[in-house]
């Protein structure tokens, strides 16, 4: 391997890693706020790419139907639970958030579609259509078992991923898509060609992580999310509703996953089931950060990207084997690092 090849591989790896980093940060966000290890974020990313491709092809994406179905289900569940607890006065609110809002999003997307919008609008539409999915799934799937163990939530999360893969095939079909590059700009740096898309990916990752940092440190909502992550009971006593914090976390997380989906779509062909590997590799990155640290997750995810890039140069067939085998030493390291505190908690 010459240094040229190494440089190309490294840049490639950093770009892939930046995409994983966005998903990884979303994963950490959800885990800290709700204790759910949300494996399906990769699916959300893949669905965004598929949605964008459908919009590019002037077809209304299957995401619309998916959102409508999920919204109806979530509304139904919410109504039943409100009736059970006798809190019918909250019904209009529930209807607005779980039914009207998602349907309005789909409606707006549908109307805008007919006007043959430019790329920038299509990007916004794709993100708009994708963001309601995770919060709705949260209401349907995770809210009823919010008090369960991390393991139960993880098991449910894995099952949910498989359901989403099936739905993906149903709503998007088996064809892979690759969207138009967002920019054709490219530059040469130290003798290595860097495409505009790569730069865009890295910049987007940095910008979104930066925005998230500002959100957490300078807004009240962000602070309430952090408080929920640190201590659910304590924050509840302070008037923060963990369920609401969870919804916000899911919204933000799926926005990040959506952006990563848009960024990866021009680089890799995305299929309905591509999300699993994206999600899992992001997740490997998140574990490097101990599932709690955002910078740690981002660094871990970029590390995974670089590793994957070099591994695929050595043996493209075995790159996934290498990446996932590497997860085990990382897990051992993390588990040892957290051993002490867990034992104290148990006593």
């Amino acid at each position, binding site marked *: 391997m010459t240094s040229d090849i190494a440089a190309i591989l490294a840049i490639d790896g950093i770009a892939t890693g930046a995409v994983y980093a966005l998903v990884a940060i979303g994963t950490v966000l959800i885990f800290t706020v709700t204790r759910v*290890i949300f494996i399906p974020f990769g699916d959300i990313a893949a669905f965004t790419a598929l949605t964008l491709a459908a919009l590019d092809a002037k077809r209304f994406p299957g995401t619309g139907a998916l959102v409508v179905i999920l919204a109806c289900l979530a509304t139904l569940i919410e109504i039943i639970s409100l009736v059970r607890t006798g809190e019918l006065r909250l019904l209009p609110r529930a209807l607005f958030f779980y039914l009207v809002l998602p349907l309005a999003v789909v409606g707006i997307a549908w109307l805008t579609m007919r006007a043959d919008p430019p790329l920038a609008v299509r990007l916004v539409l794709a993100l708009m259509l994708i963001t309601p999915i995770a919060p709705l799934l949260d209401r349907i*799937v995770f809210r*009823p*078992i919010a008090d369960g163990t*991390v*393991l*139960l939530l*993880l*098991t*449910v999360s*894995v*099952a*949910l991923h*498989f*359901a989403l*893969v*099936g*739905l993906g*095939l*149903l709503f998007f079909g088996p064809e892979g898509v690759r969207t138009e590059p967002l920019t054709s700009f490219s530059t040469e740096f130290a003798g290595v060609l860097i495409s505009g898309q790569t730069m865009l990916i890295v910049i987007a990752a940095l910008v979104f992580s930066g925005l998230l940092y500002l959100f957490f440190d300078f807004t009240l909502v962000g602070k309430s999310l952090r408080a929920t992550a640190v201590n659910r009971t304590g924050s509840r006593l302070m008037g923060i509703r963990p369920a609401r914090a969870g919804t916000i976390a899911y919204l933000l997380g799926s926005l990040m996953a959506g952006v990563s989906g848009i960024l990866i779509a021009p680089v890799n062909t995305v299929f309905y089931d591509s999300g*699993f590997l994206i999600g*899992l590799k992001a997740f*490997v990155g998140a*574990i490097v950060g101990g599932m709690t640290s955002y910078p740690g997750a981002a660094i871990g995810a970029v590390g995974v990207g670089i590793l994957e890039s070099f591994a695929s140069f050595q043996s493209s*067939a*075995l790159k*996934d*084997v290498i990446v*996932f*085998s590497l*997860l*085990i030493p990382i*897990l*051992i390291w*993390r*588990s040892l690092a*957290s*051993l002490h505190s*867990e*034992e*104290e908690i*148990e*006593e």
Partner: protein
Amino acid sequence: MTRLHVQLAAVAAVVCLALAPLVLSPFSITLMNYIGIYSLVAIGLALLTGVGGIVSFGQAAFVGVAAYATAWVSALNGYSPWLGLVFGVALTCCVAGILGVVTLRLQGHFLSLSTVAWGLAIGFLFGNVDGLGRFNGISSIPPISVGSFALVSSVHIYFLIWGIVAVVLFLGYNLLDSRLGRAMRALRGGNILVESLGINAFRIKLVTFVIAAFLASLSGWLYAHMSRFISPGPFDAGMGIEYLMMSMVGGAGSLLGGVVGAAIVTLLKNSVQDYLPLIAKGASGQLEIVAFSALFILFLQWARQGIVPFVARYLPKIKRERPPAAPPLPRRPQPTPGELLLKVDGAERRFGGLVAVNNVSFEVRSGEILAVIGPNGAGKSTMFNCLTGALRVNKGEIVFAGRPITRDPQSRIAKAGVARTFQHVKLRPRMSLLENVMLGTYARTRAGLFAGAFRLNRREEASIRHEALMQLERVGLGDKPFELAGNLPLGNQRILEIARALAADPALLVLDEPAAGLRRQEKLRLAELLRSLRSDHLTILIVEHDMEFVMSLVDRIVVLDFGSKLCEGAPAAIRSDERVQEAYLGGVA
């Protein structure tokens, strides 16, 4: 219902299974074969996940290792499938052993995530290794032959599959009812509990993990030679979660639940394949996994316990005989009264900048009751954890019966004769009183895996039962030995913990705040029990908060305050000590 009824039911089930091919259609037989093959994996998961509390998403990979191993031996190299069985089982157990050694020390969800990781990695390997047919798989795998008779038709292999399932169930239930099985069932109580009983938790986890992998390998071998063709598909991550689903639907923790779960999932899948095309034409394949995952999620939301435990609640309880007298278990040589038993010398324990225990020294002499007391945050619990090995001291030395135990792990300290109880009671609520106490005898007994599975341990088991009953009677809980421990009130749970500790035949009994949360009557009863134990020359160390309880009971008191020893002496002297009064009451009024 008695034991005999259960045995009759088992025999009837075996007869039904043996006669089933006479009435079932060939298609149903094939379905039954798949159920049997999946059952083996699900039974393994019931042991691993349900009993041991280790959630594994990766069992499909073990099935695949064995299936590919036997296909490689028999189809690609032309040897007998029986050699494939040996090779497949050996390879799978080796892989599981290595993975287990590496990952089983991981905590909670880290461990389950590691199963996702190696499950995926091994799954990807099948499709990407040269010489294993890549994604096309391996075809023309020979059938299993018994002598010169080849098990080609599905009816023939049916008997082999279900014969293996029946034997596995029989051995599995035997195992769960043995010394090792009880240790497995204690795993869910947490490492601290398991180690405090003198059990090496890691070793038990490893054994459970390898057993589950062994069952998966049997399943893989049968699968390869039944379908005569393998490809990476049936061993991928999706199948891994399906196995998990089978064991959870049937009732995690119940071996029979594995079979029931495999049957339900397989039949459900089959009917979903039949009916979904009627609802959604052309999209059935996609909807199948959606319907399936949705059902699983609903199941986890509403009926986590599983089917077999649910049904078992409505069955008549099995009546059990009180265990008869049996030869006693060997006892350890007890120290002579008055001899130095435990010596703590300059113990220090820090948590970061906080010195929780600071240069504490004291001695315990054989036959006395010593109390370590102190106000909240005095370092009592930390001292206790250092004594029992749950924590290590940063400085100083602890000597028990003439041997330093400062660096010993918990289980070795327990084996040396230190038995403990817990401030927050750690019993196995779903095990009976008798079984909880039987757990205490682990370090005194020997029977291993094979002795347990093949019931070669009967004599020792009888002694263990007898010993456990004796200890229950000694503490006054002998009237209902088969009651579940979780049904006892707190006071009796504390006393049950003492019985469990006594079953270990300890030289030193250490009690962590035994009076906490007890009502007055319960405290009096507890004090009376402890006095009777002292009259049996047992040495007792109590870490306690409750002054009144301690004063009337113990011989000597060590007072801790802010991590340091304040003073030491007889109860009357401690009561009148000004420093103690100040520590407790904040200065003499």
